[in-house]
């Protein structure tokens, strides 16, 4: 059984240690006996996009984000839409999350367009949200139901009617610091501000994504793994916030 992770712009959109998400997806598939492989999707290439089960799109610096935007529109968007329609999943973090939305509006009111794959809009805030985040997730198939991570963003993201939140923040700021929501879910795309990396400390979310992506291949259940190491790191963040 093949399992493919497609990493969008691994050389440019990789600033916050988000590689942990890639490693977690690959290893958790490998440990279950799947033939896991990574497809790197740099600028100018679309090779292998049709085979991808889960796309990952991380954050970059402004300079890099400007470079990938054009390539995203020109090369990646049509095959990405096709793949998602066919049941592939997308995990987008921070800058990647913002770029999949309609636009990013600067403090001066200038709008940088996103690719509009998800119904979210982001505008610049005057203060950076930095720190640990705990989310009570709106997903029904994960145990525990909490997600933990670290946020570091000045963008304020607001969801439109087609997107629903990934969950509600118990600690931290989340999407915008106003409506207590964090992240978004829309048609196979999961957008979030959580670094940490996100998936290593939330193995239940990693499995949720793998399960959802493999459903189209007839897989409905995943073999159980020993997650005690991962859950200990998860619990550490929960315990700190209770102090």
């Amino acid at each position, binding site marked *: 059984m093949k399992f493919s992770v497609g990493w969008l712009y691994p*050389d440019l959109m*990789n600033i*916050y240690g988000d*590689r942990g998400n890639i490693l977690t997806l690959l290893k958790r598939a490998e440990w279950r006996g799947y033939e896991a492989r990574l497809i790197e999707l740099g600028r100018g290439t679309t090779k292998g996009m049709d085979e991808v089960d889960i796309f990952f799109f991380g954050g970059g610096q402004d300079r890099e984000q400007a470079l990938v935007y054009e390539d995203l529109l020109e090369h990646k968007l049509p095959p990405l839409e096709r793949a998602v329609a066919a049941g592939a999943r997308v995990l987008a973090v921070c800058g990647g999350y913002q770029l999949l939305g309609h636009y990013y509006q600067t403090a001066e009111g200038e709008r940088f367009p996103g690719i509009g794959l998800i119904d979210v809009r982001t505008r610049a805030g005057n203060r950076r949200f930095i720190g640990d985040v705990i989310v009570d997730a709106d997903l029904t198939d994960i145990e525990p139901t909490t997600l933990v991570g670290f946020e570091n963003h000045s963008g304020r993201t607001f969801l439109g009617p087609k997107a629903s939140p990934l969950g509600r923040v118990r600690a931290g700021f989340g999407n915008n610091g106003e409506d207590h929501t964090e992240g978004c879910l829309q048609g196979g795309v999961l957008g979030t501000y959580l670094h940490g990396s996100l998936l290593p400390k939330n193995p239940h979310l990693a499995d949720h994504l793998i399960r959802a992506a493999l459903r189209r291949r007839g897989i409905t259940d995943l073999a159980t793994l020993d997650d005690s*190491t991962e859950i200990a*790191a998860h619990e*550490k963040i929960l315990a700190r916030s209770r102090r």
Partner: protein
Amino acid sequence: MRRAAAVWAGKATGALSRISRIGGGTTLPGDVARAIDPDVLRKLSRDLAQGAIVITGTNGKTTTARLISWLLEGAGYSVVSNRAGANLIFGATAAALERAGANGRLQADWGVFEIDEASLERAVDEIQPRATIVLNLFRDQLDRYGELETIAKRIESALTRLPAESRAVLNADDPRVAEIGMNLKSNPLWFGLDDISVAARELPHAADARTCPRCGASLLFDAVYVGHDGVYRCPNGDFVRPAPELAATNIELNGFDSLAMDVSGVRIELPLGGLYNAYNALAAFATGTALGLDGAFIANRFRSFRAAFGRQERLEAKGRRLNLVLSKNPAGFNETLRTAIDLAGGHFFLIGLNDRRADGTDVSWIWDVDFEHLRGRARVVVPAGNRAEDLAVRLKYAEVDAMPPESNPGRALDAVIEATPEGDTAHVLCTYTAMLDLRAELVRRGWAKSYWET
């Protein structure tokens, strides 16, 4: 008058802080004195008979500053410098205060200050250095510093405001540092490595400056030395590594023990290991020659150099050797891992990760470190520090067989000592405050001196 009051208040604070054992008085006196006279560092810097040198960059500041001080002291000058990584403006002020006399005047020939990238603009403005060294720019503590671009722009603005006679000494191998240098009006003094035999084949995952600043194309690397530092060019010819005036060739690396290289016809031997220390030594050599020191004198002086606190310290513990190396960001960590495993043949490791302010409160960066390098090579790895659990997860996904996480420094130390055979070396790689915690434990057990005595 105000300056004298500031100096006295600062000095008194320093003495109190040392007596009361609150951290060796390395920065608090600076806070106090600056509150009384905000211009105290500017005034003290003007007292320096020869002038000041400022060192910045992500990795290597402390070692390079110590190398330069060592050279100047060897040439008969008195030097004031901020020690022990106290590299914010308060640390530099505290260092100057400590050496100020009863009249509130600073009595020293040279000031050698390592300055945190984020404090550079203000520090350079107040200190007015004769030379500013920029070692490298890697991703580091994004929660505190912001992104690399922000830091790079601040450094450029600091250098742009310097008077024409002040020299910028820059690493030509770092694309982001080179870009800064090319935008300056005066000519920088470029240094770089020229020895393909010590180069890696490809960029590590955590490389940052990968694209041409002019056309955005991915840079081509003919050699990769440390992080994204190497020999690079834009495929469209829009940007190319500046030719280094001071280039290191024939580099020889001998574990953590020593390195040797040729620079300007002089063979340099240094009792410090790791390719990153070749850069530090080269930067110090470049600065020394720019200040008129003789190459042969520098080479001779380097031979008797000693490393700074936790930068590369060796201790004895129950018949085992402990090799302490500060490792605090992906580029630095990858290099210490590479040195410990490939060059020093290390098998036993304690890795300490803390998430206090000085370490960076976001530990995401451990996923950018190539811990996979330990797989199949390390026999024992003890994950330590207050985020030992995160480290344990990272090691699990690198498929490195590790011991259970141990947040208590004493117990972590016991675990690694017990697992290391007598006569063998345990490599202790820690973030800043994790190293402080561990060292405090070593001092308590009588295995190390307190850091303000080193």
